[in-house]
């Protein structure tokens, strides 16, 4: 009787917990606080934060309850992460929610979405410099794409053991965009530049909106076929939305489907941060490099915009370069707010969204490119 009692006690979390579990529980609670009280990207931080709590409840290995134990419920739900299915499905919903008309109205803004991807390649070098193996380095670099599902997808393919830290880093910095970007934006742009107004976007015809997803999937995936699981879904979702004859499918894609994927993606990614696999020096390195990646990405967007202005007759507002790091819609909002600060009549939100969406496409292509380097 007492044997059983003590055997049970030795299997409780109270007995098994060590300081690392408490650290992670504090981290999880912080995520929940930032998401709930501060409203930083709650759709990301809330499921992840709660997942961190659940994933860091100490348990006796072998029960088959841990996310890394075969046959556990969490393991089955995590399957959608390790196979890359959840990210693809999130992109389906994203496509069904994204309105590309502002991008179609000013295609040159797409170059800013390309420029902001430079952060990825600098980080690639940085990560290798600090001794990460190439596949790990590539997975860390993609954090510079500022796109959660893309980062998770590539990491699942190249360095599955780093999914936890890389996903957490990517999502944390996406939530911290309002803290990271403004200083860099102020530093790299003059007041005169920040005052530049953008022309209102021309009207886009329904047919253009219909042709874009088709042209997009063909051009992007012919170039980088490995981007297909992400971009194929993104443009499928967008076509469902724009074609106007399958609204019931588009509605389901942008509600039930994407919400379900969001809950399980966030929750299981959170659970994957089990203290013993998460609290490593590697994770520290990843968080450092992630911050670098975000900063360089922002900077390269801004600088490239300034370079473009050397050649363009009607200048573009270089702040928009910072919106090239996808981080939908955080970065576009920051650009918009900074523009308003200088001139309360300067509205950059729509233009920022254009850069955002091209940033999403850009980082998905980069994921494809990096993946293809290692096959």
């Amino acid at each position, binding site marked *: 009787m007492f044997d059983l009692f003590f055997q049970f006690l030795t299997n409780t979390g109270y007995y098994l917990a060590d300081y690392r579990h408490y650290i992670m529980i504090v981290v999880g609670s912080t995520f929940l606080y930032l998401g709930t009280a501060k409203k930083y990207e709650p759709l990301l931080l809330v499921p992840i934060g709660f997942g961190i709590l659940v994933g860091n409840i100490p348990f006796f290995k072998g029960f088959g309850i841990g996310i890394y134990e075969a046959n556990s419920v969490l393991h089955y739900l995590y399957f959608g992460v390790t196979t890359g299915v959840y990210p693809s499905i999130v992109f389906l919903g994203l496509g069904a929610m994204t309105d590309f008309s502002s991008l179609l109205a000013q295609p040159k803004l797409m170059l800013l979405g*390309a420029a902001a991807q430079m952060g990825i390649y600098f980080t690639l070098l940085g990560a290798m410099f600090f001794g990460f193996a*190439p596949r790990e380095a590539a997975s860390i670099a993609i954090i510079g794409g500022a796109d959660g599902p893309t980062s998770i997808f590539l990491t699942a393919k190249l360095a599955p053991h780093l999914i936890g830290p890389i996903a957490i880093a990517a999502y944390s910095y996406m939530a911290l965009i309002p803290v990271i970007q403004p200083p860099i934006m102020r530093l790299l742009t003059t007041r005169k530049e920040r005052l530049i107004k953008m022309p209102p976007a021309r009207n886009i015809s329904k047919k253009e909106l219909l*042709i874009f997803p088709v*042209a*997009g999937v063909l051009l992007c995936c012919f170039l980088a076929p490995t981007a297909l699981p992400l971009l194929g879904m993104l443009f499928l979702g967008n076509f469902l939305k724009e074609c106007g004859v399958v609204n019931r499918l588009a509605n389901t894609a942008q509600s039930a489907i994407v919400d379900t994927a969001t809950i399980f993606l966030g929750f299981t990614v959170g659970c994957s941060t089990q203290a013993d696999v998460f609290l490593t020096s590697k994770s520290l390195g990843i968080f450092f490099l992630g911050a670098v990646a975000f900063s360089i990405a922002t900077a390269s967007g801004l600088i490239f915009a300034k370079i473009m202005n050397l050649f363009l007759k009607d200048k573009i507002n270089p702040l928009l370069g910072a919106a090239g790091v996808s981080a939908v819609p955080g970065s576009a909002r920051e650009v918009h707010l900074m523009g308003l600060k200088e001139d309360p009549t300067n509205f950059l939100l729509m233009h920022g969204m254009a850069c955002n969406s091209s940033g999403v496409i850009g980082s998905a292509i980069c994921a494809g490119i*990096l993946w293809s380097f290692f096959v």
Partner: protein
Amino acid sequence: MIGIENITNHNGWAMAAVGATIVFSGLVVLSFVISQIHKLLKLWEDREKLIERFKKKAPAAVAEKVDAPAYSERHLPSVDELIGAYEPLADQLEESFNLSQLFEIAIKNDMPHPHLSIQRLQEADILVAQGDGTFTWNKQKESKA
């Protein structure tokens, strides 16, 4: 291994350079193409106009009416007349209704070939799909019609 050495031995410089080049060229091409779409569309429509010159019938229109056979042209009242006839019926239904409901009520009132009429009203966007299989009667549009 660590430092520059790690980069060089694992072909890091090449990966960075090639990767950057490719994503850039890719998006440049894409942005160029989408900047051309509306011009191509314009050309296409002009071509259609030319064709119209010859045979007085817009292909687009044909496309629209594909499942409303030609004869219907002759027999059916105009959209405006249809609105007059069908709005009272639609008002008897809830805000959003299934076409079948409207269809049945139309039969009850011995409307002439309700099926084609309802089709017409759809094409004229007077009946607007809610995406969940139900439809609503579009007052704004109608006022324009």
